[in-house]
């Protein structure tokens, strides 16, 4: 027997809408599990066949005050805004000021920095702007594209 075709009752629309809303929130919230302030830098990594870099602020601020990197070494307050590459690092600029085998471990430990899942866009993880502007930036942006939130 063929079931009778009826329009969906209003009450069911509401439950559907509520469920999809919950789903959207789940999708938005699901990736946000890394540490607050973890910066993903993917200016060149994906294109060069390396995993993107993750810079953990929490680890570094236990050992150095902000000013050491952001004033003395010239890191700008902008994820992906410093155009760092390995030539500069090996030359002793940016990360290379410490990661030289003298102050901190050296550049041969590639995978300790280049440790993000391939395709992760440049971002400050769990930043407010990230949450407001680009909830689903991870899904929307192509690999290598810088996510909007970190930009001014």
């Amino acid at each position, binding site marked *: 027997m063929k079931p009778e075709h009826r329009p969906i009752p209003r009450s069911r629309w509401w439950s559907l809408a509520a469920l999809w809303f919950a*789903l959207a929130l789940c999708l*938005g*919230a699901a990736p946000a*599990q*890394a540490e607050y302030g973890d910066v993903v830098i993917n200016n060149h990594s994906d294109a060069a066949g390396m995993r993107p870099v993750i810079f953990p602020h929490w680890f570094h601020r236990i050992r150095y*005050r902000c000013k*050491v990197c952001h004033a003395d070494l010239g890191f700008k*307050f902008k994820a992906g805004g410093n155009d760092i590459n390995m030539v500069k690092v090996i030359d002793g600029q940016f990360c290379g000021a410490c990661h030289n085998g003298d102050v901190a471990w050296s550049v041969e430990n590639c995978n300790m920095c280049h440790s993000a*899942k391939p395709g992760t866009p440049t971002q400050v993880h769990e930043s407010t702007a990230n949450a407001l502007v680009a909830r689903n930036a991870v899904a929307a942006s192509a690999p290598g594209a810088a996510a909007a939130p970190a930009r001014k």
Partner: protein
Amino acid sequence: MSPAAFLLRRPVAAICAGLFLFMLSVGTVLAADEPLGQRTYEAACSPCHASGVLGAPKLGDAAAWAPRLKTGLEALYASALKGKGVMPAKGGQAALPDAAVQAAVRHMAQLGAAPAAGGPAGATAAAAAASVPAAASAAAVSVAAANTFNRLLRAPGRRNLPPAEDQIHDPGNDGTLLLQPPLTAFEALPRSNAGNRVDWVKALGGTHITPRADRLDPKAAPMVMDLNIVREVKGSMPDVVYPHKQHTEWLDCSNCHPAIFVPQKGANQISMASILLGQQCGVCHGKVAFPVSECRLCHSKAKPASATAVGAAATASRASP
């Protein structure tokens, strides 16, 4: 089956299918070397069990899992394979082999029995769960799920995860496993309720940590300036007190002046909108310094009584017709 369960079943199946397609479309690659249980969990179960949507017991939530674990693994297998309440059979993915579903159940049961970042609070919750009936724990789950919907809060099972589980590090990368898990560093530090869940200002002031002020010289001292700037704000929020002291403990004058803030009273227009979008205070607050959910850490100076009275009178006159 109750009519309510029937109504819910189809949207749930739609959600599961939608999530599956979503995962495929964004190219979520499941690493082949991850254990079967975890892989299945991430593919089929996590859409509901990660956030606790629709009353699903959350991964790592000992209070929610305790009564379920009491029923035994076989009962849990049966629920997962045949469906229970609003949960469809095999989480709506009928193609999954039984062994994979059972492995996922074991994975969730394991983490439910021993939460990764439980600590004393987790232990208390587990102890409480033993005496709480299932209905009450279901209510607790829905409260926790409501909290995860607030972007500024993070569910207990998602706080300070080790790199391999934090969703941005590649667990298949050997270097990831060499990195320090945050909790091992944070254990000794004063805690807070937001951001890294570490009160960094207290950690520095209480000499829990002694970060260098110079790249090489461990004895170099920062140039600390003790000057509070009070900013009167519109509306009912307390005025903002900006302490140079806590900022210069970490930062150099040149970090903020003159590019972000003109060093002159009244020269800087600041709004919460621009802060939320990562400008002015938001260059750091909301990214690495404590997030904007902590309103009262900045808005900390009560308005003068007269101003409050005037404001209240104005509100009252607006309210009365």
